[in-house]
């Protein structure tokens, strides 16, 4: 049983009521302009106007613009045209709105109108919008807390996911590189004159086929080496999460672990389940542990994998504290050998974030001349702050 709103006797007529309806919709967050009122009135002349269901369908077509609005429309329509307020009672045979629903909706309406002032341009999806706001704020505050923490407190999976997101952004910043030169492409922005002329020989010098060229995407390749020795163990889990994020964001990235020897973990990190990948890695990393042989590990990397995977477009990311049990000369040699392949070397040292840190450890001091960028990385904010500098590399 529904009730049709009876408008006051001095009401000027259908046009004013329609304007009122459009205003009502607008206050409830539907994005409608002036012309919609006109269109809606015209639409009513084209359907069987005395039938309320026909009007409802016509106005729905005119006034809504997306699935959510279409869902809410019935309720808004009822609350305006079938308002239980000032009424003469009339039975509408085919209607799905129950009386209790009506009461509810008229109350809702006033509530929504009250708070819709500030959000007039966004679709007001009832409690959905409020929900979103809530979680949005929660995440924001959590994030800022998280960023100031020392990484060793990061053990919960959600936090690792957060670290992963940062890694993803950094990976993207590193990868986006465009070439200056143009090469032949099917849909290029410029004409490829050399090819056009070459092709035109076949048609008697008439350039019948226009061939094009374009700047290709020349992505940088990230190669990450993560130290998982005993001294790094408090950081390793987060670094691994960071690597996992990097792997996910970038199909060409490559990852290695080292402690006393070097292990390639690219395949393991490509596991579909992020947590499972990290679990597998943590097991691998824990399995060794103990001392660090940075020099020999990097030497081995330079001699084997680097030949296949490192070239002038690579960025080698070393995550290590630089405490080496082997003589520093080996490390220096390995790095200079790597450097000769034309790559950039970035060293992220968790200890550098500490106050009064100086790279006096023998290995670190020996490595410094070969490194393009030497940065701290013991908080998420540090990792995040790296991004602008990586872009300019």
């Amino acid at each position: 049983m529904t009730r049709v709103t009876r408008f006051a006797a001095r009401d000027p007529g259908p046009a004013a009521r329609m304007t009122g309806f459009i205003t009502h919709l607008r206050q409830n967050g539907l994005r409608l302009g002036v012309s919609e009122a006109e269109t809606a009135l015209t639409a009513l002349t084209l359907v069987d106007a005395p039938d309320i269901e026909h009007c409802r369908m016509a106005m729905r077509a005119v006034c809504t613009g997306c699935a959510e609005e279409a869902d809410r429309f019935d309720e808004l329509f009822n609350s305006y045209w079938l308002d239980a307020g000032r009424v003469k009672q009339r039975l509408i045979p085919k209607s799905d709105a129950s009386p209790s629903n009506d009461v509810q909706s008229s109350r809702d309406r006033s509530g929504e109108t009250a708070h819709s002032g500030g959000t007039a341009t966004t679709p007001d999806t009832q409690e959905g919008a409020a929900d979103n706001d809530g979680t949005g704020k929660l995440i924001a505050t959590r994030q800022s807390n998280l960023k100031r923490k020392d990484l060793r407190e990061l053990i919960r999976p959600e936090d690792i996911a957060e670290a992963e997101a940062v890694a993803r952004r950094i990976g993207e910043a590193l990868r986006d590189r465009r070439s200056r030169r143009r090469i032949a492409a099917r849909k290029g922005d410029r004409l490829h004159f050399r090819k056009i002329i070459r092709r035109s020989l076949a048609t008697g010098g008439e350039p019948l086929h226009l061939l094009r060229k374009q700047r290709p995407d020349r992505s940088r390749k990230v190669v990450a080496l993560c130290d998982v020795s005993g001294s790094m163990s408090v950081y390793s889990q987060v670094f691994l999460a960071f690597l996992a994020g990097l792997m996910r964001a970038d199909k060409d990235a490559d990852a290695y672990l080292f402690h006393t020897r070097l292990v390639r973990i690219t395949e393991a990190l490509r596991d579909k389940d992020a947590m499972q990948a990290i679990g597998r890695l943590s097991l691998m990393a824990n399995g060794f542990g103990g001392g660090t042989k940075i020099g020999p590990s990097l030497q081995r990397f330079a001699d084997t994998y680097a030949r296949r995977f490192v070239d002038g477009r690579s960025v080698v990311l070393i995550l290590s504290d630089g405490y080496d049990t082997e003589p520093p000369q080996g490390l220096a040699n390995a790095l200079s050998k790597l450097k000769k392949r034309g790559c950039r070397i970035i060293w992220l040292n968790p200890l550098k974030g500490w106050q009064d840190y100086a790279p006096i450890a023998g290995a670190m001091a020996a490595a410094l001349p070969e490194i393009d960028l030497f940065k701290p990385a013991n908080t998420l904010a540090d990792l995040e702050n790296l991004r602008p500098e990586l872009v300019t590399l």
Partner: protein
Amino acid sequence: MTWTDLQTALGRQGYVASDDLAVALHLALQLERPLLLEGAAGVGKTEVARTLSQAKDTQLIRLQCYEGLDAAQAIYEWNYQRQLLSIRASAEDGETGKAVEQRIFSREFLLERPLLAAITRDKPPVLLIDEIDRADEEFEAYLLEVLSDYQISVPELGTITATSKPMVILTSNGTRDLSDALRRRCLYTHVAYPDRQTELSILKSRCPQVEDHLAHQVIGFVQTLRKEDLEKTPGIAEMLDFAAALMGLGIADLTDNPAVLQATLTTLLKTQSDQAQITPEVAARIAGKAA
């Protein structure tokens, strides 16, 4: 012509339109506004345009959108090769440069693409812009200009105004949010999966030879299957395939032969995980419910 007339006209062509859709379509035609149809894949959005063109006995011009669609493929392009040949030929006839230029930038040398074709027909065609959400935002902006003024400006020729306003139907699967500006220009209808009764009449109108008993079972089966947590929910076309497959195999009752039922599910389930999820036991349970 009222919207019920339109609904029956579509019905005669084998398309069962819901009241909502018929009213929206009727208004779109009368108000000369584009109609934006949204809904899951396989609910018959594209089919509306095809049926409308048949019902109105007019041409259907289809523009399939995709990422990277540009103006040259959607609006117009100069016939470059023909222009070149023409220049070469005119050089031998001794035509002046000015005259040649006049000639090679005329309508004769313009290759019509769907949007230009749609506004230059004598009889208003149905213009179907399919999966607009796949096109880039730049193209959407371009489309706005065409849809609001029904005119296209070609720098070398001037503005081409519509000889007839096409009936425009846009469809979207929601892979990306469309701009508010485009939504405002269009009338909107969300096309949902049909309810049991509607779907039954669709099946009846498309496959008249199917038995009543089997038809009810097929619809019941598909409707229940849609409620399962599937990656790819079967649409109407899949339902019709399913019915056709069952008839082709001479099956009169779904519960008769579980093995054959499982085999015919290939017409409904289109991913590996969906096929793994609907095991013979599950299929038998759903078929039992539908019976």
